């Protein structure tokens, strides 16, 4: 069963302005880990926000869990993680994680129990009463992930969640995310601009081109599960990294040709 269906979606910003997305068709099955990768300005974050009904598409249709994206948002069918952890400084770590549960009307005891489970899941046990600014960037992002998972949504939308982290922390967070993905069995849509990250994490990498944002190619990542640190050393991993890089390069080539045409050189 597909969790997300994107049919002919387009998005234009402003009055007759920039075309951010054009003719996007994408189906995401339950349990998939799909990365959206592409040059900046290809509309990958916009596409993610359209799936989450945070941005309205200019055309086309979105179905999430068999209903409209709008209804899915109202039903709290997805959890979202941004590049910035977006934690509230006035809340402790535990209360930040419990925020969606409070809004869903869970009682205090149920909330506390769930928060403990999640703190354990993201390996932050013992940090309940800390405030977000007392944590490192990687720890803050783990709180943000725990918050997104708190109400067990079947769909997780992630917008470059590890983009601001250093390489070491990012690789560790990738491992943790895979572990969480496998433990929870959720479907993940993951925006990134890192080829290595997209290949290592995904079951499919959706390569997008810019101006206008379009799906250029979809690379199936057939690396065996579960993935480990050794996965990054397998020949197949390098082949897939090369495949995604070349797909991206082809979108870049288009761009260069367009610019040459515009410049009157071709």
């Amino acid at each position, binding site marked *: 069963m597909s969790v997300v269906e994107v049919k002919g979606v387009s998005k234009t910003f402003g009055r007759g302005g920039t075309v951010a997305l054009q003719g996007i068709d994408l189906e995401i099955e339950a349990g998939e880990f799909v990365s959206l990768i592409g040059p900046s300005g290809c509309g990958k974050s916009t596409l993610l926000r359209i799936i989450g009904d*945070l941005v309205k598409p200019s055309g086309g249709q979105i179905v999430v869990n068999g209903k409209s994206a709008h209804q899915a948002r*109202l039903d709290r069918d997805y959890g979202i993680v941004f590049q*910035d952890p977006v934690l509230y*400084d006035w809340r402790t770590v535990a209360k930040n994680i419990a925020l969606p549960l409070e809004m869903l009307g869970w009682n205090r005891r149920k909330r506390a129990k769930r928060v403990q489970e999640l703190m354990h899941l993201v390996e932050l046990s013992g*940090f309940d009463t800390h*405030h977000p*600014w*007392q944590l*490192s960037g990687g*720890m803050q992002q783990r709180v943000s992930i725990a918050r997104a998972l708190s109400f067990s949504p079947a769909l997780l939308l992630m917008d470059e969640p590890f983009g601001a982290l250093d390489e070491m922390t990012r690789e560790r967070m990738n491992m943790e995310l895979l572990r969480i993905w496998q433990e929870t069995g959720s479907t993940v849509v993951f925006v990134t601009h890192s080829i290595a990250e997209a290949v290592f994490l995904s079951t499919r990498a959706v390569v997008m081109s810019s101006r206008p944002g379009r799906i250029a190619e979809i690379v199936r990542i057939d690396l065996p599960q579960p993935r480990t640190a050794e996965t990054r050393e397998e020949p197949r991993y390098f082949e897939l990294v090369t495949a995604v890089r070349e797909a991206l390069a082809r979108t870049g080539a288009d761009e260069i040709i367009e610019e040459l045409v515009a410049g009157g050189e071709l």
Partner: protein
Amino acid sequence: MTAPTAVEPIPRGALARGVGRRVGDWLPALLVFAAGIAAWQWIFSPLAGRFLLPKPSAIGTALWDNRHVLWTAGWFTFKEAVGGFVIGSGAGIAAALVLARWRRLGGAVMPYAIAANAVPIIAFAPIMNAWFGVLNPHSKMAIAAVLCFFPVLVNTLRGLTSVRPESLELMRSYAASEVDVFRRVRIPSALPFLFTGLKVATVLAMIGAIVGDYFGGSIQALGVQIENSISLFDFPLGWAAIVVASAFGLAFYVAIGIAERLATAWHPSHARRTE
């Protein structure tokens, strides 16, 4: 997983210990204060003449001799100031909430609020006296309230509307109601801004109440006491009344400062990193 590094939360009693540790830091300021009083007592006051600039010792004597009258007068005017502060700040906060909720209205109204903020509103003092009665404390409250209104409005509104877009997107992803967005995001993140406005307002409220008294008021009011002593050439008493006014103003400011610490105890600026 590496050992997590984190900053400890402030333990209880840390505030008191912090103050204790910083007594040494205050020494230079105390020395400057003592030197200033000494220079006033033995240099400036003799130069200016005791009428125009009474010695601190004379002011101290006047303060002690008239302590009951001055305390009563100070308390009377302080109540005027607090009343005006509550009304003006309350209205400012309410207006900020309305303008933050209906942004288009805010866009239409704010230029005037900002312009009004630059008007020397104290000039309206005689008009307020005329409206509400010279002897009625309500006229002084009205002046204080009008003075408090704009800084509180402008600061609170800035706080309510300077929420990061992702914070709002997150609330939207939870299908949060407008009330939820205000209660859980906008209002908490506006608190530091609100208190900045309130602290300015404490000072303005005292100014409003005292200046209102200058244009006529109850004989019990501090501003009237200052006026009368000066016109009777009792300068030490006038200065003593000013000392009382300053003390009440300072206490008011500190009280709001403490309320701020309590309300925004979570704020990073209030904790000292222990790493």
